[in-house]
């Protein structure tokens, strides 16, 4: 500990001004709900068999799935914390560091520490039965954000707030089609294997390519593990084995940035290989302006307001839709400049 303090105390970063993410969401950055998305089903406290409550008196537990080391998670956690502070709600948090067993036990820990409401960013959609059973026993309503929990809507959880990953894949495919004029060879940088985000973003992309752009051929699919390093090494291999590659679809910004580093290292020019990514981080949007990235499909992590809104209205006995799908932005060369402030 002393060591850490020592190391930190005399540290001087490259850019001292960098304030980091504070999660102060402006109105423009906030999540916007999709108009007609979702199943239309709703859930109320009565339906779920839970007594009404006042959010302000409740202790809320938030379980984060991955280390807050990438912009998405940083912004997500910050947004939840900011919102809790704003509303004066007591919040306890935990982070499972990408370990699913850890997340299960984290959530149970949160409940035994007296969390009466839960917000969960699940690492995985399946495997929640023990948690759901205990939450039911303890009458703890759950709002899941960003990824779904597979279970009975309203029975097991109140609502799911998040993006439609398949749709993100489709929109990425549209951007790619536009970028390549509907013709060419494309590589996919997959996310971590066994992750539903990977599965769904791949599915949407392939579906739409097949439907709309028969001229585009997917010639290469390798995992970059959602990391910048992974994206970089795989792309380096890719440009050796498929020198004629026309486009790269990276399933998150980090891998996309890694791909750009690799292309730069190989002496390619911006635009020689079209890159489309998903997430909407500042760095990625900057790369659009630099000409390296063709487009970015947003996946907005600022769940704070909507998540607490959901709990609040649920507590008041109102009907809450069981699925709140966010309408994500899209960045491309046309809007990157003005929309840049909305990136995270």
């Amino acid at each position, binding site marked *: 500990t002393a060591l850490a303090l020592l*190391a930190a105390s005399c*540290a001087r*970063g490259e850019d001292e001004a960098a304030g980091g993410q504070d999660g102060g969401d402006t109105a423009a950055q906030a999540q916007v709900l999709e108009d007609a998305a979702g199943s239309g089903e709703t859930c109320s406290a009565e339906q779920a068999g839970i007594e009404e409550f006042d959010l302000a008196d409740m202790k809320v537990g938030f379980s984060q799935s991955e280390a807050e080391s990438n912009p998405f998670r940083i912004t997500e956690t910050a947004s939840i914390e900011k919102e809790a502070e704003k509303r004066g709600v007591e919040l306890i948090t935990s982070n499972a560091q990408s370990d699913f067993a850890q997340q299960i036990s984290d959530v149970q820990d949160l409940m035994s520490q007296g969390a009466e409401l839960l917000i969960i960013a699940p690492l995985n959609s399946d495997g929640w039965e023990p948690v759901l059973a205990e939450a039911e026993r303890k009458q703890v309503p759950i709002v899941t954000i960003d990824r779904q929990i597979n279970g009975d809507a309203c029975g097991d959880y109140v609502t799911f707030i998040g993006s439609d990953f398949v749709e993100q894949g489709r929109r990425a495919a549209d951007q790619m089609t536009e970028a390549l004029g509907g013709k060419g060879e494309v590589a996919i940088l997959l996310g971590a294997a066994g992750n539903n985000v990977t599965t769904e973003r791949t599915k949407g992309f392939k579906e739409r390519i097949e439907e709309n752009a028969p001229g585009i051929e997917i010639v290469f699919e390798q995992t970059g593990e959602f990391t910048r*390093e992974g994206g970089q090494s795989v792309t380096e291999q890719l440009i050796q084995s498929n020198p004629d590659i026309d486009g790269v679809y990276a399933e998150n910004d980090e891998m996309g940035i890694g791909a750009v580093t690799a292309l*730069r290292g190989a002496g390619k020019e911006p635009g020689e290989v079209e890159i489309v990514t998903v997430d909407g981080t500042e760095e990625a949007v900057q790369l659009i302006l630099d000409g390296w990235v063709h487009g970015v499909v947003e996946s907005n992590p600022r769940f704070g307001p909507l998540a607490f809104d959901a709990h609040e209205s649920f507590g008041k006995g109102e009907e809450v839709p069981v699925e709140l799908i966010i309408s994500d932005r899209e960045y491309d060369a046309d809007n990157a400049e003005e929309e840049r402030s909305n990136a995270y």
Partner: protein
Amino acid sequence: MTAIGMPAVRVDRTRAVPWLQEYGVYIGVAALLVFNLVFTPHFLSLENFRTQAVQVTPVLILSLGMALVIATGGIDLSVGSVMALSAAMISLYLGYGPVVAVLVALVAGAAAGAVNGALVAFAGVQAIVATLAMMIGGRGLSLVLLPQLDGIRNPGIRELGAGEALGVPYLVWISAVLVAVVVFVVRRTVFGRRIVAIGGNRRAGELSGLPVRRTLLVVYVLCGLLAAVAGVLATARLQASDPNSIGRLIELSAITAVVVGGTPLQGGRVRIAGTVAGAVLMQLLVSTLIKHDLPPSWTQIAQTAVIIAAVYVARERGRK
């Protein structure tokens, strides 16, 4: 006064099997190269070899330190976390300029190695436990220090990662120099001889007056230092400090490279050239699988088969 007690051991051992044991890993590398030349399009290009050389750099440098540690009969699971630590240091101290930042990163790596070494040599903790603790704690510490990925814009560091001299990337130059240094240390210095002697029989080393503990300490410090170098280079190449994902599971690759290269895990022998070949073998294998766009399940299973085959060929024989 004439010859007495002449043993039945004879000179001219048939060397067929030992030969395979000695050169198996090179044969493996050669086989993969041939396979790729025949079946992989665009394999035979300078650019491609440069890519492979650059990608293998971190594992290669780690495996040099790992080989020394394994030669003493130990193991170091913490190298990946030490890489993370050095990455965090770079980002934290870059404000003082790249030279200071790199130095601090190296010092941090050496310090982590010193803790490992002290636990192993002086406190008598088993290497695998001591370095396991460092692996867990070191990663945590680097994330405490630098909780998030931090892009690096410093031109010096970026040049280190992407630049080249005489057409060869700096990264490759550095690893070549380090290989040469370690070979020299192992072959030519008293210290190098002591490493294998301690691995071969620690008690005997102690009774022969070797500074066993000091040597062990230095070996772990070197391993930490090399891990820090790997961390610096990986950071420079990525152009970002990423203590969360840098070096995850890389200790397993480094150990594999060392063992596949013919250094036995129980220590007492070390083969640096074999280690280099082992690292190259694993790099070529993964790159071959990627280039042929095989799914991850294949990659994993193929690695399993190659590791077992390579270790089987290089294994100790004749004990029974």
